[in-house]
């Protein structure tokens, strides 16, 4: 059988096409500039201009780090200073709704939707809980916006000690806001309080059952690939694997029932498994393994323990109260 022949089509632009494209590019660029005249690249004077690569716009990086990164990850976007200019009309432009509030509201409504699918909420329950979501979202958004506003129009110059200090303070603020975002609608929130009041006994039992099952399943799915890696590098037998699995299932951490959106943080998951293994009874486990295996396992457990504070920032586990 002859397979289908794949031809690569080559685009050869004619001279007229190139001239047209160039003309279109010029027109489009000038229109773009006209539309975007509130923000522009600020030419950096003198020495600062030579260090352009070291200057970080903190306002723009606040959102990028709060919403696009998880755990302890940090990203640096768009070097160079961007400043807001006053509106040409002189009138204050109405701020569109903050990205923080929109994101929080979305998270809350997704959570509410999940509760509804599990318990089947009545219209009255839906209305009460939607209000609670809105209230929580606004409260947290206000806190985050207050922090964010401190960085409006500011930049940090990495080439100067002052700039480095500024960047460190910025990182701490971002981490704090990220933790607030992760813990939104959890135990201390209005949403959680209203949920506890609003659901009847049967609904509450169903929701608890479902949350517990999801947590346990997430933990099983998290530890299985780590055990598989140990299988390959430590040469585990069936009994040894079972002993480790038993110990880890018994040491299930209070995982957040919902995984953070996007890609999995497998490194954090691996470290969490090692940390939880270190909490197991070593006297029970020790007898199952050869000296060489136990030495390797001890190293892994120590690695997990050393990562404890880093793991707290990753948002996999609910905060201990």
């Amino acid at each position, binding site marked *: 059988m002859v397979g289908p022949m794949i031809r690569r089509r080559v685009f050869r632009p004619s001279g007229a096409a190139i001239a047209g494209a160039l003309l279109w590019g010029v027109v489009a660029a000038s229109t773009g500039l006209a539309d975007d005249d509130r923000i522009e690249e600020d030419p950096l004077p003198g020495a600062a201009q030579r260090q352009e690569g070291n200057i970080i716009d903190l306002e723009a990086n606040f959102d990028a780090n709060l919403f696009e990164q998880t755990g302890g990850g940090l990203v640096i976007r768009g070097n160079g200073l961007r400043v807001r200019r006053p509106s040409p009309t002189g009138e204050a432009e109405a701020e569109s709704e903050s990205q923080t509030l929109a994101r929080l509201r979305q998270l809350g409504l997704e959570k509410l939707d999940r509760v509804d699918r599990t318990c089947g909420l009545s219209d009255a329950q839906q209305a009460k809980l939607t209000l609670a979501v809105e209230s929580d979202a606004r409260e947290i958004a206000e806190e985050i916006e207050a922090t964010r506003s401190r960085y409006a129009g500011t930049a940090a110059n990495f080439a100067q000690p002052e700039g480095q200090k500024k960047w460190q303070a910025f990182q701490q603020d971002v981490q704090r806001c990220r933790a607030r975002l992760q813990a939104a609608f959890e135990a201390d929130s209005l949403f959680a309080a209203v949920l506890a009041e609003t659901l009847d006994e049967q609904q509450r039992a169903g929701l608890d059952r479902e949350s517990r099952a999801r947590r346990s399943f997430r933990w099983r799915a998290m530890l*299985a690939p780590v055990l*598989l890696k140990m299988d390959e590098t430590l040469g585990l037998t069936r009994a040894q694997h079972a002993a480790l699995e038993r110990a880890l299932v018994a040491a299930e951490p209070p995982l957040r029932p919902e*995984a953070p959106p996007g890609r999995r943080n497998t490194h954090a998951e691996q470290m969490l498994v090692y940390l939880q293994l270190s909490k197991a009874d070593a006297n029970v486990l020790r007898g199952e393994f050869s000296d060489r295996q136990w030495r390797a396992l001890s190293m892994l457990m120590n690695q997990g323990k050393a990562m404890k504070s880093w793991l707290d920032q990753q948002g996999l586990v609910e905060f201990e109260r």
Partner: protein
Amino acid sequence: MRLDFRHAAACIVLQALVSPAIAAEPPNPPAPVPQPAVIERVFRQAVEGVVRPLQEVQENAAAVAQMNQQRRQQAVQMQQMLQPAMYGELEFIRATCGELSREAKRAIKEAAAAAVREAAEQFAAQQHRPGRRSVDLQRIFGKTLDPIVDRHASADAVAKYRGEKRAREQRRAETARLLVVSKLDEELDLTAAQREAILADLESLWDAAWLCELLDPGSFVVNGHRPAPDFAAECIEPHLDERQRKVWESWVRVASWRQAGVHLGWRFPDGPGLNGADAWWDR
């Protein structure tokens, strides 16, 4: 091939110009006598047709030599990376087979090293081929080590070794199934009953090819999604509700395993492992 063809073509053209009587039949009317300039041009083209391919062959040979050199370097690096897996495999044999003769230990250790060399070479070779395929280290270990263990270990030890290997394979399959359902849960928000039903179907209709899920490192994203495990669609789709089915269909459209899975070809058995060789194998 290219050299022979051009050379032959040039010879035919020259022959046709120099001996028109042979080329044209019947010889009536008389063939025109070629001009010297034409002969020179054709001759130059014929010579170029021979010389240029020779240069190309030399250039290609240099590129091939460079590629081979890179491949050898990659294979050496890879051998280092595979050491923890080799020590793990040897520990597994020691734990399951018990006491072995000195000769058996030596043979098994050598075979394990050979398996690592083979895996490393396969890995390096795959790096230079379009549409990379995976290198299955466990299969290579099995193919190389099983006959040696069979030959040198007692019947009881061989039975235990084989049984433990089967159990390990089952653990791999179970992990792959859990990872499939976990990924579905993250995208589709399954209920506990749906998770259990899909797991049960994956187990009853299990296909060893689905172990490919183990290749997904979790951080690989296509069009904003992790690769959809649509290779097992028959175990998944019957259990989805309408909302989930819509999400599933759009997920498969933008990040099916067929689109994304080709990029996933290798799972490194990384980690510190057993920290070096075990002196027992040399005693």
